[in-house]
C-alpha cells in the first residue's frame, strides 16, 4: 500500500514537473536547422485534446505555437469553423517577434466572424472565426489557443482526425490526446506517426500521440493522394449520434448504413411529379431507355445550387424540395434522381465519392472514413453511375475527376466500396486532321477536323452548353486551343447521347512559318503540339500515380510552297516508349506534300519515386518530337 502511494506520488510529481518544465520557446533562432529546410513555417508546439463526452457531445482544446519563416506563408491565418452545433470559446492569439518578445495580443476587433458563403455554397449557416495578425518581419511566432464545444459529433467536421503539419511546414513537437468513454470503441488509421500511449481510468480511455522533429514535406506532382506525404491520424467511433441518427464507423458497411439512414424516406414524389415521370417513360420498354429518359428529365429541370443549412449539409433535401425549387446540391439532386427512378421501379443507390482529380485521401477496404466531398447515383442493374449535378453529360458518363478511385455505395444493406471506372486511352481520344497550305512568306491556311471522346470532349461539351459561338471561339483561343479569332470558320457539334464532340475550324495565319532569308522554318504541329512536361523535382519522395488515359492522334498534311524545297526534314520515324505511354510519329513526302502522323498513348500508371526522372524525360522527348520543325529553302532552279 505504502509503495503504491509512493509510486503514485512519484508519477504525479513527475507529470507536474514535466508540465512545469514545458516552457514554450518563442525564439525563432532555437529552431533546429533541419526543421527549417524547405519550411515556410514551423509548429513549435501543438497540443490538441479531443474529449468525447458521450455519443453526441465533445470538447476540443487547441493550443499551437507556430513560427512563420516566410512572408508568403499563410500559417499566421487562423480560421475556426463553427455553426449552431460547434461553439468557439476562449479564443486567444498572441504575436511574438523573432527574439520571443511579445508584440501584441489579438483584441476583439482582430477577430472577424465570417459567414462561410462563397465558392459553391449559397445558403449556409456555418461561419468562421478569422484572426489575421502577423508581423512585418519574419521570423515571428504566434501562440494560438481556443476551445470548442461540439454538439452532434459527426462525420464531417468534428470527428477527431488530426493532421499535425502541412506541406512546407515542420514540427518540433505536436501532441494529440483523444479521450473517450471506454464503453465506446475507437478505430484508427495513422500515417507517419509513432504508436500512441494508451491508458484507462474510471471508464475513460486516453490515447496520446506525439510527433517530434518532423521535417517539412514537399508537395509533389502526381502522388497517390494529397495526404500521402503528411503525417495524419484518422479516427472514428463505434457509436456516434447526429441529430438523433445513430451511427458507427466500425466498417464501411456501418458507415454506409448510417448514410443510408439519413436519406431514408426522402423519396416520396408529389403527385404531379409522379404523373410527369410516368409520362416521360410512357412507351419505353427497357429499363435502360427509362433511365436515359429520366436522366434527361432530371437534367432539363434542375440546376446546381448549394444549400447547406442545418443537417442539410449531411442529409439530402427530399424529392419534393427539389421538385418545387428545381435546384439542389449533389445529394439533393442524386436523391431526386433516385426517387424518380424508384417511381418506375428501378433501384438505385447514392454513391459517396471524392470528386477532384487527386483524392485527398486514398480510401481502401480496411478502414472506414469519411473522405468524400461529393455524391453521385449508382444503378446496380446496369453497373452505371449517374452524375446528377451535370446538365449536359450523356447518361452514365463519369467525368475523369471521379474515375480511378474507390467510392462508397450506400445500399439498403449498408455501405460497400466499389471501384469507379478506369477508362482506357481509347476512351479519351483526340483525333485531329490538320491541313496546312503553306505560302513562301510563312503564311498558312489551316483547316482542322477534330473528333474528341471521353475526357477530351468534356471542355468542348461544357462550352457548348455555356456559351454562344463567339464566346466559345474566344474561350478556345485564349487557352491556346485555336490559333486565330477573326475570319475563321468554326463549327462545334456535340453528341447528346455519347461522350463525343466534333470540331471543324479553318483560318489563315500570317506567321505560321518563319521566313528567314532564303529559308522557311516550318513547325510541324505548331498549334496542337503536345508540350506538357511534369515539374522538375530533383528529390522525389513519393510513388507516382497518374490518373489519366489518353490517345491523341494528329495527322498534319502540309502543302508546301511551289518555289521551295525541303532542306532538312529530320527522322522519318520517331518512336518513344515508356510504361506511361507510347509515342510514334512518321513523316512522308510525296512531291509537294508532307504528311506527318503522330499517335500518342498515355496510360494511367503507378510508378515508384525513383522512376520520376525517367518519366519526366519521356514527356520531354515527346515535347521535343512534337515541336520539331522542317526547314525549307528556295528552289535552286525555278
Amino acid at each position, binding site marked *: 500500500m505504502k509503495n503504491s502511494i509512493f509510486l503514485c506520488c512519484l508519477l504525479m510529481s513527475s507529470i507536474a514537473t514535466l508540465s512545469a518544465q514545458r516552457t514554450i520557446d518563442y525564439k525563432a533562432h532555437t529552431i533546429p536547422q533541419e526543421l527549417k529546410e524547405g519550411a515556410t513555417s514551423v509548429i513549435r508546439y501543438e497540443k490538441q485534446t479531443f474529449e468525447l463526452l458521450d455519443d453526441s457531445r465533445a470538447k476540443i482544446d487547441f493550443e499551437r505555437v507556430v513560427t512563420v519563416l*516566410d*512572408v*508568403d506563408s499563410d500559417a499566421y491565418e487562423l480560421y475556426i469553423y463553427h455553426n449552431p452545433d460547434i461553439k468557439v470559446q476562449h479564443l486567444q492569439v498572441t504575436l511574438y517577434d523573432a527574439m520571443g518578445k511579445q*508584440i501584441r495580443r489579438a483584441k476583439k476587433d482582430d477577430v*472577424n*466572424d*465570417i*459567414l462561410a*458563403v462563397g465558392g459553391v455554397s*449559397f*445558403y449556409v449557416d456555418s461561419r468562421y472565426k478569422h484572426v489575421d*495578425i*502577423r*508581423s*512585418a*518581419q519574419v521570423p515571428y511566432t504566434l501562440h494560438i489557443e481556443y476551445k470548442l464545444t461540439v454538439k452532434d459529433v459527426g462525420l464531417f467536421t468534428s470527428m477527431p482526425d488530426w493532421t499535425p503539419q502541412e506541406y512546407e511546414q515542420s514540427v518540433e513537437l505536436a501532441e494529440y490526446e483523444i479521450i473517450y468513454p471506454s464503453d465506446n470503441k475507437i478505430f484508427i488509421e495513422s500515417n507517419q506517426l509513432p504508436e500512441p500511449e494508451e491508458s484507462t481510468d474510471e471508464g475513460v480511455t486516453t490515447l496520446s500521440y506525439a510527433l517530434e522533429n518532423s521535417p517539412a514535406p*514537399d508537395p509533389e506532382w502526381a502522388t497517390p493522394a494529397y495526404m500521402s506525404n503528411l503525417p495524419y491520424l484518422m479516427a472514428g467511433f463505434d457509436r456516434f449520434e447526429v441529430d438523433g441518427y445513430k451511427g458507427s464507423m466500425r466498417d464501411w458497411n456501418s458507415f454506409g448504413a448510417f448514410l443510408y439512414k439519413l436519406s431514408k424516406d426522402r423519396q416520396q414524389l408529389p403527385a404531379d411529379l409522379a404523373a410527369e415521370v410516368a409520362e416521360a417513360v410512357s412507351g419505353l420498354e427497357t429499363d435502360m431507355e427509362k433511365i436515359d429518359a429520366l436522366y434527361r428529365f432530371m437534367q*432539363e*429541370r434542375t*440546376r446546381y*445550387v448549394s444549400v447547406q443549412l442545418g443537417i442539410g449539409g449531411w442529409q439530402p433535401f427530399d424529392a419534393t424540395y427539389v421538385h*418545387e*425549387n*428545381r*435546384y439542389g446540391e449533389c445529394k439533393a439532386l442524386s436523391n431526386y434522381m433516385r426517387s424518380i427512378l424508384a417511381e418506375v421501379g428501378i433501384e438505385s443507390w447514392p454513391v459517396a465519392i471524392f470528386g477532384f482529380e487527386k483524392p485527398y485521401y486514398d480510401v481502401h477496404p480496411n478502414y472506414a472514413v469519411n473522405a468524400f466531398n461529393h455524391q453521385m447515383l449508382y444503378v446496380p442493374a446496369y453497373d452505371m453511375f449517374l452524375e446528377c449535378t451535370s*446538365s*449536359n453529360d450523356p447518361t452514365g458518363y463519369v467525368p475523369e475527376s471521379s474515375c480511378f478511385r474507390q467510392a462508397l455505395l450506400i445500399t439498403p444493406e449498408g455501405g460497400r466500396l466499389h471501384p469507379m471506372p478506369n477508362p482506357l486511352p481509347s476512351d479519351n481520344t483526340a483525333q485531329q486532321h490538320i491541313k496546312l497550305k503553306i505560302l513562301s512568306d510563312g503564311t498558312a491556311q489551316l483547316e482542322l477536323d477534330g473528333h474528341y471522346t471521353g475526357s477530351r470532349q468534356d471542355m468542348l461539351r461544357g462550352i457548348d*452548353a*455555356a*456559351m*454562344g*459561338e463567339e*464566346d466559345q471561339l474566344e474561350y478556345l*483561343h*485564349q487557352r491556346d486551343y485555336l490559333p486565330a*479569332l*477573326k475570319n475563321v470558320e468554326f463549327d462545334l457539334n456535340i453528341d447528346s447521347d455519347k461522350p463525343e464532340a466534333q470540331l471543324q475550324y479553318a483560318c489563315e495565319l500570317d*506567321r505560321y512559318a*518563319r521566313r*528567314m*532569308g*532564303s*529559308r522557311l*522554318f516550318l513547325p510541324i504541329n505548331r498549334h496542337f503540339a503536345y508540350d506538357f*512536361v511534369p515539374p*522538375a*523535382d*530533383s528529390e522525389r519522395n513519393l510513388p507516382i500515380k497518374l490518373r489519366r488515359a489518353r490517345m491523341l492522334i494528329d495527322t498534319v498534311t502540309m502543302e508546301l510552297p511551289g518555289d521551295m524545297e525541303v*532542306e*532538312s*526534314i*529530320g527522322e522519318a520515324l520517331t518512336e518513344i516508349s515508356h510504361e506511361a505511354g507510347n509515342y510514334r510519329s512518321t513523316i512522308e513526302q510525296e512531291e509537294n506534300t508532307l504528311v506527318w502522323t503522330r499517335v500518342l498513348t498515355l496510360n494511367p500508371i503507378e510508378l515508384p519515386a525513383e522512376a520520376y526522372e525517367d518519366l519526366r*524525360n519521356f*514527356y*520531354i522527348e515527346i*515535347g*521535343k518530337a512534337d515541336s*520539331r*520543325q522542317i*526547314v525549307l529553302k528556295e528552289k535552286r532552279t525555278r
Partner: protein
Amino acid sequence: MKKALLLTLLMGSALFCQAQYEKYKYGKISDEEMSFTEAPGHPDADAYTLFDRLAVSMMISPTTGSFELRETLHRRVKLFKESSFDRADVVIGYYEGMNIGSIKAAIYLPDGEEIKLKNSDIKRDEIEDGFYECRFTFPQVTEGAIIEYTYELRTEEFSLDRLPTYYFQESIPARWSEYTITKPDGFTYIDLATMHGFDIHETDMISRGVGNGGQAFTYSYDRYVMKDVPPMEYEPYTNNTDDYMPRIRKQLQYINWQGFAYDPEMSTWEELAEDIRGTNLWRYASGRAQGNRFMDDLEPLIAGASSDTEKAMIAHRLLNNRLVWDREYRFLPSRTPNQIWDKREGNSAEINTAMLHALKQMGIEAHPLFVGLRGQGNPMEYYPLRGQFQHMLVLANLEGAYQIIDVAGLAIPFGFARIRALNHRAWLVTDETAQWVSIEPPLAEETILAEVTLDTEGMAEATLKTRSKGYFGSNTREDMVDAEDPLDGPFITQIAERYPEVELIEKVLPEADDPNKPFSYELEVKAPIGQAMDDMMYVSPLLMNLVTAEIVEDEERTYPIDMPYGFRKRYICSMTLPEGYEVAELPESSSMRSEDGSVSCKFSISQSGPTISMNLDFKVMRTLFAAEEYEMFRELFRQVNDLQESMLVLRKVK
C-alpha cells in the same frame, strides 16, 4: 394662375414619367418579352437585361424629419442559356445602418406560369462585422424564363457628398437601363458621367410635404435612360475599365437650401488643399509628439547617416521591418505614427504618414502625394474631388532631387511606388501650394549577357549574367525567394519553357543583396539550342523568350493599353560555333521604332571568325497607348516575337 399652371405642368410631366415606367411595372411582363429567344443584335448572349432601374431619392423622412437615402432597384432579366442560370442567385450587399425591404421577386416560366418567392425564401445574414447580405435564388429556373426582382435600401446614415453610382452597361446586353435621382432642390451635384449618350434625359420638379399638414419641400427629379446597351467586353491590359462604361456618378458641388449653405470641397483645388491641411495628416506628419516613440527608435539608427537619402532609406527600411500593412488603402490617416508604431500595423496612409513624419523630423522637405489606385478610375483633374483618392505617397526632396517614397513592404524598393499606385497622375499638396504632377516610374530594365559555346550536337554551354533593375529587380528577387526546385526561379524557368531538358550547372547569387539596388545573378546552363539535321544545324541564339505575345493577341482594341511602367529588355549574346561548322545564313540585322520612338527594337547580329555576336534591345518607354495605336503596338510586338525566335543556319564544312 401661374401656380396652377406650374402645378398642372408638374403633374403632367410626372404622369408622363409614370406612364413610361408603367410599361415596365413590376409583374407586368409583356408578350414581347416572353417571346424573345435571343438578345437582338447579340445572338451569343446567354441572358438579356430587359429592364434595370435604380431609383435614388434623397428626401426628408416623414417619420424622423431627417434626410433619408433610398435606393430602389428593379431588375428584369431573361435567361436564354444554362450558363446564365447563376444570375438567378441574387446577392444584395449592404452595411450596418441600412435597411433592406420591399423585396419582391418572381420568376416567369416560358409556359406563362409565375412563381413568387416567399419571404422564407429570402435569407439575410451578417457576412462579417457590419456587412450584410440578402440572398435569394429562384426556383424552376429554365431556359427562356424571366426573373424579376425589386428591393429598397434605406438609410439615414449616408454621405451627402456622393450619390450611389449607376452603371448602364454590364456583361450582358441591356434593353433598358434607367437611373433616376430625386433630391432637394438646392442640392447641386455635378455629373461625373463618362459619357452622355442618353436616350432619355428628363428633369422635373416635385413637391412633397412632411407629415400631415407639415412643411412642403421641393425636389428636383432627373431621369436618365439608355436603350439597347451592348455588353461590356473585357480586354487585357485595360486600366480603370469602369471609366469606359456609361455611368452616372453624382458628386456634391454645393448646397443652398432652406437658408442653409454648404460648400463641401467643390470650389477649387486650393480650397480642398486647405481643407486637407486642416486634417490630422498635417498634425500627425509634423507634431513631434505624434510620433516620438517611433522617432526614439529611428534616431539612433540615423545618427551615423551622411546624407538625407541615407537617412530616408533607413527610415523606410525601419518602417517596412516593423509595420504590417493591414491591406486597407486610405488617403488620410486615422491614427498617429505612435499608435501604429505600437500596434505594429496600419493602413496605407498611416504607414506613409509615419514616413512623412520621419522625413519632416529629420529636416527633409517632404509632402503628401495623393493618388487614385489603378482600377479605381482615371484621375479627374477638372474637379477638386477628394473621393478619387485612395492612397497617399510621399514626395521628398533628397539632395535636390524629388523622389517618390511608398512604404509598401520589402518587395518595393526605396524610391518606388507600389504598382497599384501607378495611375499616371498624383495630386501634390505642400504647406503653400497644391498641384497635379505626373508619376513616371523609371524604366524597369533587364539585361542578359550570354556567353555560349555550341558543340557539334547542338548542345550549348552557356553562362548568363543577368541584371534586373527597378520593378524587374523586385520581381526577380521575389521569384528567387519563391523558387522551390533548382530549375525554378528567374530566367531558368524561361529557359526551361523553351528547353525542358535544360541542365543547370550553377547558380551564383550575389553575396550581399541590397533590395534598393539592381538584382544581379549568374547562371550556368546546358541546353540543346541547336538542331543538327543532315549536314545542317539550326540554332536559336536566344535561350529564352523576352516577351510573350499575350498582350497583342486581340485583333483590335476598344480601350487603351495601360501598363504601370515602361521597360527595356536586352539580350546580348556571344556564341562560339563548333568546329567543323560554318555559317550558312544569319538572320538580318534590323531596327524598328514607333513614330514617336516610344517603342523600339534593335536587333543586330554579326560574325567574327567562329564567334557570333548578337544584340536584341527592346524598349517600351510609354505606359499608355490609345486604342488607335494598337495596330502599331501589335505589329512591333509581333516583330520582336519573331526576332526572338530567329535562327542561325550552320552547315558542315566540306
